[in-house]
């Protein structure tokens, strides 16, 4: 386990207070956050390039925050890769091994294995200037992994790549991680990249670690409204807890003038009666009912009638904007193309939708200002 404990860092008006972050050993950890959230500052603190006011960085039970960067055993891959232009690919790859005086057979075998996996054997005598974008990425990865670091830090290395190359390098990273099993901390603001690569995702917003967990946990069950908003989640509605039934493990939430009963496992915190909450409804989970077809008992409680206001073809799916009758809200629905064609939906068509109670996710707010801001928007 690699841990950043109680990190306090101030830079101008930016504050990071008591940040604690745990990275799983051998996992591909992702630090996800918007620009200006402090991701790079954390990364620079871990490498040892930035002084922080207080805090500890613990690797394998050893505190390393007072060690110089070269003694930390942490490799760093910056966004521009920073391949040494005056050295050949071979010299770039050997740079770390020479600096750390690692010349044993084990390291040699590891390097050969890396060269093979990265498919860069034919590039060894070339200089970085003559390499393609993909080749540079491969060499930079090889150079960073050659000394078998305890942690590999990747600072948005895929941001500037075109989509095809980005996809290629993402696949390469996944393969490389499976093959070698290094511990990585990948910094990015790209949601898709984080979902694809991250075994363990840490969401950082305004210098605070808002959530961490497995990708499904973070993307499907946001802990705070800030996380939900950063992830671009739609269908966020303000509601109020009417009853918290601990024995039955159910909570009753007031939403759209109805009482919706939701399993208490579908919230990230302990809720109390009268607490204002945010309900998140995944656009994929809204079911459009076929006229005349029998409706399951479990769906009958939450049926809404209304009209389709807009339909957009998003390539992989259709996006449907639905407005329930008598309510000042909109529901966004994502439909697979084949379902959309099958239903033959059109704009201004009147339809009925059903929502399973398990499709709701309740985000606590502790009656904070965020719920009021959402209320004013809806």
């Amino acid at each position, binding site marked *: 386990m690699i841990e950043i404990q109680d990190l306090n860092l101030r830079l101008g008006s930016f504050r990071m207070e008591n940040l604690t972050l745990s990275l799983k050993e051998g996992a591909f950890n992702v630090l996800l956050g918007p620009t200006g959230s402090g991701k790079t500052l954390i990364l620079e603190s871990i*490498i*040892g*390039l930035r002084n922080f006011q207080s805090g500890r960085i613990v690797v394998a039970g050893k505190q390393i925050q007072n060690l*110089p*960067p*070269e003694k*930390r055993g*942490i*490799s*760093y*891959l*910056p966004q*521009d890769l*920073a391949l*040494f*232009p*005056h050295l050949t690919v071979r010299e770039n790859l050997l*740079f*770390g091994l020479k*600096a*750390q005086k690692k010349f044993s057979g084990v390291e040699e075998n590891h390097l050969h294995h890396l060269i093979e996996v990265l498919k860069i054997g034919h590039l060894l005598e070339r*200089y970085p*200037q003559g390499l393609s974008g993909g080749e540079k990425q491969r060499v930079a990865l090889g*150079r*960073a992994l050659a*000394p078998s*670091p305890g942690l590999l*830090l990747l600072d948005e290395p895929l941001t500037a790549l075109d989509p095809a190359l980005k996809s290629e390098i993402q696949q390469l990273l996944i393969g490389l991680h499976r093959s070698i099993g290094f511990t990585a901390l990948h910094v990015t603001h790209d949601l898709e990249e984080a979902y694809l690569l991250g075994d363990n995702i840490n969401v950082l917003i305004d210098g605070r670690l808002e959530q961490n967990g497995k990708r499904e946990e973070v993307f499907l069950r946001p802990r705070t409204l800030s996380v939900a908003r950063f992830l671009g989640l739609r269908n966020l509605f303000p509601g109020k807890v009417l009853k918290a039934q601990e024995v039955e493990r159910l909570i009753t939430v007031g939403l759209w003038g109805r009482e919706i009963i939701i399993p208490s496992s579908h919230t990230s915190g302990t809720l109390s009666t009268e607490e204002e909450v945010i309900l998140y409804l995944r656009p994929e989970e809204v079911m459009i009912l076929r006229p005349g077809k029998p409706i399951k008992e479990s769906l009958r409680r939450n049926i809404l009638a209304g009209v389709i206001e807009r339909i957009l073809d998003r390539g992989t799916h259709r996006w449907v904007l639905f407005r329930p009758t008598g309510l000042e809200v909109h529901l966004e629905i994502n439909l697979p193309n084949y379902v959309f064609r099958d239903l033959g939906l059109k704009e201004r068509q009147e339809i009925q939708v059903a929502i399973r109670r398990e499709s709701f996710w309740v985000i606590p707010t502790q009656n904070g200002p965020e719920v009021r801001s959402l209320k004013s928007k809806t």
Partner: protein
Amino acid sequence: MSFSKATLIAALLLFLFYILLIFSLLNFFEGRNFLQVFLAPDILFSIRLSLAAATLATLLAVAIALPAAYALSRLNFPGKKIVDTFLELPMIMSPVALGAALLIFFNTRSGTVIQEKGILFVFEFPGIVLAQFATIAGLAARLMKTALDEISPRYEAVARSLGSSAWGAFWKVTLPLSFRGLVSAVILCWAKAVGEFGATVTLAGTMAFKTETMPTAIFMALASADIQKTIILILILVGIGLTALYAVRLVEKRPHIL
């Protein structure tokens, strides 16, 4: 007239101005006297003195300017802007004023102690070196900082994360990458030191076979109305300067890989 044509004409006029200046010297130049004047013991002494003093002053300037340039380029420290501004002082201060300031310093208590217990500077060879050093050290730091600024600090960050010490990262990465810029800076500073007059003459004087550098010799020759000697010395100085500038161009032209 188009914008690009106007700028081109300005560049051409500037070039012609300097070329005409040099060609005007040839009006009074008598080639047959060249070798005789050039090989005269006092002229050879002045050339040797200028080259030796300029080389020593440049070495000393680089020794202090390179680490200073690194600090200004890479580190943040209180008073950085003030230090940075002061480095430009020799560029805006008249060389005579700089020499005078040095001369006045050696008349203070600490200056006198240095003269008496350490090295004699006033009207001596070390005085020439010091005057030239004072003129070029700031410039050297400024030029070297520019060369270092061009190299992304991320190279060093990566080198350190791979196991290099701060010294090692500088030596193996930053220095080779900024080498051309640094060498250009050294050559330019050396050329400026060779041509330095104001501070040198104020601090070291104009003693033949002792402190008479080439620029001083030009001044003295002109003062005694020896036009031939003046022209030949100017041509030698221009030759040295142009060679240095050409060397800078050659260094800049070299492929990136060392």
